[in-house]
């Protein structure tokens, strides 16, 4: 590679990967959202927040995302492995916070942004790639 080559991010997904490396806390509506780390991903996957398998609507899934990223972790841990209880906690969060439609839009945009960073950062072994044994 030439020393003088200017590194330019040419693809949109390259930009998203760059963002994903430094993705930190961010504000959405009234809520300060924690970064999406492995714990948050695991909690969202377990409760069908990312891929809807609860039959929940956008309001609920967006609120679940906000709850997982803003409520105290000890509170989330107490309910996150029990789906029925988790659904109840998110319903309660919706009742207490009463997010407006513009706040739901902001939260939904934050959710999509985090998912895009995540999906653009995932990779798979090529057919010529050798397993590292892990």
């Amino acid at each position, binding site marked *: 590679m030439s020393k003088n080559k200017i590194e330019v991010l*040419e*693809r*949109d*997904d*390259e*930009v*998203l*990967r760059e*963002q*994903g*490396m*430094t*993705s*930190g806390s961010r504000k959405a509506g009234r809520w300060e959202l924690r*970064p*999406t*780390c*492995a*714990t*948050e*991903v*695991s909690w969202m996957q377990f409760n069908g927040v990312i891929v809807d398998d609860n039959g929940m609507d956008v309001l609920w899934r967006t609120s679940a995302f906000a709850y997982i990223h803003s409520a105290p*972790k000890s509170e989330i841990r107490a309910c996150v492995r029990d789906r029925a209880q988790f659904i109840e906690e998110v319903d309660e969060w919706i009742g207490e916070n009463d997010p407006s439609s513009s706040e739901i839009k902001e939260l939904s*945009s934050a959710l*999509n*942004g*985090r998912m*895009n*960073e*995540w*999906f*653009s*950062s*995932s*990779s*798979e*072994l*090529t057919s*010529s*790639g*050798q*397993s*590292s044994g*892990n």
Partner: protein
Amino acid sequence: MAGYALRIAKVTGWGYREIMEDLPFAAGLQIIHADDYVNGVERRWTRNERAGSFDSLAIIEEAFSKL
């Protein structure tokens, strides 16, 4: 998720909390990608589009708002 945590721990030497609760998941995935790359293991991005679905204007505005 256990495999992810183990890989990151091997590369970085970080503990459970740093890996699971501090490191953005997207960054962790890229660390694994980079580690494979330096060890000669080929991986390809599952998504590498020129036109990903993100709002470039919002990103530009956000960058300018920080100036």
